């Protein structure tokens, strides 16, 4: 990670939604994001103890910290690999999708705690499953196709 690389705009797609991030860098096919952009784009924050989300902190591998965080940037791709999360990118390198870890998803389902989500209705108003706590919820899917 050198400081004289020109930054680029990328679109990050994650459970946070879609976010455009300026000043990103692609190095050896990995995406480095400015530390400041990380919380909004991916939901993770760089702290002295590692990369953190809510109460969870994942320490960076000892002796390899520079492969994950350097000069105000975080190697988001490497962190995703480290934590067995799925990711992919457009061939052009301008859209990066950061997905889930299958074991975490499976564990969440086995807890029988309904995973929360927030989705819009036709008018654009957002609804979260958790808004309806205290009710019996019948959650059902359909599609036009």
């Amino acid at each position: 990670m050198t400081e004289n690389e020109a930054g680029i705009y990328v679109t990050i797609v994650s459970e946070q939604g879609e976010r455009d991030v300026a000043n990103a860098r692609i190095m050896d096919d990995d995406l480095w994001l400015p530390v400041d952009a990380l919380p909004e784009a991916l939901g993770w924050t760089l702290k002295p103890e590692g990369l953190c989300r809510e109460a969870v902190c994942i320490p960076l591998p000892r002796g390899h910290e520079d492969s994950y965080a350097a000069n105000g940037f975080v190697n988001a791709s490497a962190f995703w690999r480290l934590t067995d999360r799925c990711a992919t990118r457009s061939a052009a390198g301008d859209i990066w999708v950061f997905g889930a870890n299958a074991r975490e998803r499976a564990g969440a389902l086995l807890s029988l705690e309904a995973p929360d989500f927030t989705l819009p209705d036709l008018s654009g108003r957002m609804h979260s499953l958790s808004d309806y706590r205290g009710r019996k919820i019948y959650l059902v899917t359909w599609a036009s196709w």
Partner: protein
Amino acid sequence: MWQALHQKLNDKGLTVITVAMDSDPEAARPFIEAAQPVHPSLIDRDHLIAGLFNLVNVPQAIWIDEDGKIVRPPETAGVAEEFRHGLDRKTGAMAPEAAARNEKIRSVYVGAIADWIAQGPASRHVLDPTHARDRVRLPDTDIEEAHVHFRLAQALLRRGRSDEAVTPIETARALHPDSWTIWRQTAAKNERGLATHDAFFARVDAAPAGGVYAPVDMDGMPE
């Protein structure tokens, strides 16, 4: 149908939440406007809940109690595979016996929801945690990879980059062959907006029994 259920049982504690798994909200709009729902009627362009709940087709449903606990994990929402043998693929008409069996399954299923609302945890349709866990289909890494490629394809399609979406669509389909939501969302549609052309029926014919709509495992269902 869900609208009627919501209105009938809303003051008994039920909230129906419908989620349209439609990458284009405009495709869902006419159906929603015709139904004029008073329940939350949501649009999931990227099929996020397919990832969260490991869903493979529509309609699937999850029963969630007042504490946010799943008391019936994702299952087929009261439909059956009668169309595989009972549908005239030219006219779209269902054979009477097939239609009758569909209706029976639907009515048992809707009756079970009403029983849950009336009896709460005492309903025989509420699964205890052990049985509920046994029924959860667990996602693996291929499935998560499929969702990531599907989301990339959707992001590209929204930007008009359909040529670039071809590869992620093919990858998503190959990684998650059990998913009808991925396949049908990304399949060519006919003039009525339906992915029910020859390729669809070829896929249906190749699927094992229960591979389109897994049978609802519920007390009172017909044999």
